[in-house]
């Protein structure tokens, strides 16, 4: 099935995040080749111009490199996985804290609520 995309985030960025997750989970590794723009477009059901933007943005961030005539590769730096996982961790925690603060929870409330939730073996 063609993937559904969230309404309020650019699609090129949602595709980048999918690739980050694959790197973090160890499904793709430094040095691996990414699908061509067209292949990726077909797999994800999006316009190739969008995928081109995903690849350019990741290149600007130093996560991939384009080798002329060969395609786009994850850069060969082992730290990349760690950096990405830190980055995504920060984003998720930031969002959690922002949402909780908006509702008026204090820092102590947040820690308490997380501890309770994890102790009860909440959603995996």
């Amino acid at each position: 099935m063609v993937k559904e995309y969230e309404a309020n985030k650019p699609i090129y960025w949602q595709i980048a995040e999918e690739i980050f997750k694959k790197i973090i989970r160890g499904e793709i590794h430094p040095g691996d080749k990414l699908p061509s723009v067209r292949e990726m477009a077909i797999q994800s059901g999006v316009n190739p111009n969008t995928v081109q933007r995903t690849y350019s943005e990741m290149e600007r961030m130093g996560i991939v490199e384009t080798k002329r005539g060969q395609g786009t590769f994850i850069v060969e730096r082992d730290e990349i996985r760690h950096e990405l996982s830190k980055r995504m961790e920060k984003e998720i925690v930031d969002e959690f804290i922002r949402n909780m603060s908006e509702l008026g929870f204090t820092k102590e409330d947040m820690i308490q609520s997380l501890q309770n939730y994890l102790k009860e073996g909440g959603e995996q």
Partner: protein
Amino acid sequence: MTIQLNRVSKKYGFDFSLKDVTLEFQKGKIYGLLGPNGSGKSTTLKLISGLIFPTSGSVKVYGQPVTRKTSSIVSYLTELDMFYDSFTVKQMISFYESQFPDFNMEKAKHLLKDMNLLENSSIKKLSKGNRARLKLVLALSRDAKVLLLDEPFSGLDPLVRDSIVKSLLSYIDFEDQTVIIATHEIDELEPLLDEVMAIYQGSIIGHENVEKLREEQGLSVLHWFKTLVLDQEIRNRS
């Protein structure tokens, strides 16, 4: 600019189908022409393909005013069913090949395979989904500069829609083709589109880049379009 509509109006009797529409399309992009039923989407596509002519204003494709001959560089998928029931799939394809010099038989064969259509099936016995697939095979098999698709999804189940999206992405020539898709089914098509134009009661009420809309306004195309139409309806009432 590959396609230009300059202050185009089209009247049927006393009724305006399009009112003072100015639009431009560039090659290498996929455009969505969005509007409710009867808003003027099909009229716009027919004007570009040279099936009808404007009451006033001009329509140009590659700098030339549109004539009946424009159909030689424009591939047009109509929303209507246009098959001869007594033909087989193969005969329908040969007929198309005989009509259009830019028909690419190799591409047609690939597409038939991708769409799981058999050459010897009779048109009469095709399901609705397979008829829609065959229409798309015919439209995409031409190496035409301009590809116009009128409601390619209408009445089709999600699986057929998916296979149509994939074929579009596989066979559109993004270097050289301009693609315009007219639809009121916005959700599924959104990830495919570069730009969207909203048309309402014969007038263009909005034109945006899809990713900019998300980035700068945090809006999906569907949301943007609904807001525009609602504003317009409120304005009409007051």
